């Protein structure tokens, strides 16, 4: 295989994986945009969505479409409930309180993993062929292609929702200024709930797609660690930022892994995005598309 073919392969892989990162990062962005809360439990959201889907599929034995639906409904309910029980009480508290609360939530969800209805890693089979599509020098696994397409679809969908729909405009108003939104007759608390439910939807899809790629167990939550480089690069409150950030992180980690891993013995994939993120924080902390509201002290 030629040198450029290797690079092309790394790039194509990076783009598709990057789009799948974008999908998960979208969950983070939606909540931050609407409620100013940061979700350090995004990976765990994806994990429990995977657990619900696999649990419905293998333990209850329902068909695949129903188990995906179960994951969606379950995560929407979870999002609403979480906002009601925990996050509403933390409105107006310092950042560290919300950060720690979501870290605590992550600990709870991860700790509950082994108490679930099944033990060990379970596959989440989707009706897709195993053989990769061969396009010239490129090998594209079908799941990544589907994942990338689903991500694009949802990113476009949420983009449309925020730009055009009545609810989306209301949510943008809430994100912009809660008091003015209240004065305009928008039910701010309800939209907080809606934002968390939307994160639930995104996480459910992420759980199904990533669960299919990696298998469903507690380690599925580790995918959440990729969210931070993506959102910092793209901008914390920007949907196009999530896409661009995801693409950058996907490409960088694949290229870095392809070229650096042979020298250091693996692990570059988890390392390179964070180096990039530190650089981004130093140079452009609000990200590529983020709002420039960062105070400099």
């Amino acid at each position: 295989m030629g040198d450029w073919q290797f690079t092309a392969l790394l790039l194509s892989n990076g783009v598709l994986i990057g789009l799948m990162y974008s999908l998960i990062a979208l969950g983070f962005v939606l909540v931050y945009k609407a409620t100013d809360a940061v979700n350090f439990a995004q990976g765990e959201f994806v994990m429990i969505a995977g657990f619900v889907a696999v649990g419905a599929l293998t333990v209850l034995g329902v068909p695949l479409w129903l188990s995906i639906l179960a994951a969606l409904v379950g995560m929407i309910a979870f999002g609403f409930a979480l906002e009601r029980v925990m996050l509403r009480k933390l409105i107006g508290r310092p950042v560290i309180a919300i950060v720690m609360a979501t870290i605590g939530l992550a600990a709870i969800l991860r700790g509950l993993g082994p108490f679930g209805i099944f033990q060990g890693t379970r596959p989440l089979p989707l009706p897709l062929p195993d053989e990769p599509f061969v396009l010239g020098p490129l090998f594209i696994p079908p799941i990544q292609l589907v994942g990338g397409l689903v991500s694009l679809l949802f990113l476009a969908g949420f983009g449309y929702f925020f730009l055009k729909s009545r609810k989306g405009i209301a949510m943008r108003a809430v994100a912009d200024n809660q008091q003015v939104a209240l004065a305009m007759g928008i039910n701010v608390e309800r939209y907080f709930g809606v934002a968390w439910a939307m994160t639930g939807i995104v996480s459910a899809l992420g759980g199904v797609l990533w669960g299919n790629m990696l298998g469903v167990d507690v380690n599925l939550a580790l995918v959440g660690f990729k969210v931070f480089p993506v959102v910092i690069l793209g901008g914390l409150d920007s949907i196009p930022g999530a896409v661009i950030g995801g693409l950058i992180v996907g490409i960088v980690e694949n290229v870095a892994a392809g070229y650096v891993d042979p020298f250091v013995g693996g692990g570059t994939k988890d390392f390179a995005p964070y180096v990039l993120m530190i650089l981004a924080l130093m140079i452009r902390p609000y990200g590529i598309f983020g709002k420039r509201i960062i105070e400099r002290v």
Partner: protein
Amino acid sequence: MIHRECGILKTTYEADMALYPLPIAKYAVAAFAVLFFLIVPLMLHEYFLSIANLVWIAVIGALGLNILVGYTGQVSIGHGAFMSVGAYTAANLATRLDAPWPVNLLAGGLMAALVGAIVGIPSLRIKGLYLAIATLAGQLIIEWTINHVTFISGGVQASIEVPRPRLGPYVLSSQHAMYYFLLFFVVVAIVGTMNLVRSRVGRAFIAIRDHDIAAEIIGINIFRYKLLAFAISSFYAGVTGVLYTYYLGIANYEQFQIGVSIDYLAMIIIGGLGSVLGSIFGAAFVTLLPIVIRYAMEAFSGVLFSQATVHNLIPALRLTLFGALIIVFLVLEPEGLNRLWRNIRSYFRVWPFAY
């Protein structure tokens, strides 16, 4: 005199800043000294002493993190990584150069302070959430570096055995010896922190926490003091890492992963942000929690689960309870155990009378 004040009756700044606000505080400190230096080590079994030692190590780390998060208001999710820097510095010095423990301890602390100050550089431009994510990146990058650079980690296992610390001719190998060894540093750390936060530097930290722009306007060099806070906090972390390495007899990066950083954050939140006593409460609470859970689970294990599954479930249960406690404290008692203790104390202050 054994009496308590019945209100805030201080008339001078000196009285307000005093280490012993009342004579009773001196007696209390003396009583605790007797308790922890004589009664506890003589009464407790070796196993319980080893738990007490873990608590002492955690107290030093929690004090360090509280200086940064509680007093200076800079969020850090990289405390565990700074500990690993200290631990590996000491382990390498001990095995390669055969350096004695005081040198290792100081070198570990200083190296961690240096790395901490470097990780803290982004704090000059960003704060809050962004800083939390930046320190998280610092944690992951340091973890990866130690794990992948064999010069630091000493091979594939990334663990280095260290010899026991010796004091003159004595080798500190028993839990009793370690107890006194660690307690000495706990006392130094507590007194050091108490004096730090009532000094000029500590007041600058608190000013930055309360309002950074106002602090800059009254002439506090934010650049210097933020980095200083990171350095001091990381020095404590490095010392904690070195002590933990000596306690275990081995430096292993798995003891300092991101979960440890979160444990320490939980300690100071459960204990109380910006309080020395809170750090101690929190460290003891978080360290003892899994042990209590294990006893409880073993006691009830026959009823609910089989013995084998209990051992698998303990870490998971610990994690769950731990997360729940963080959330409960954040929602219900943001000032932590320290606040509960103050409430109890102020209730008994004028006890038989209502006012």
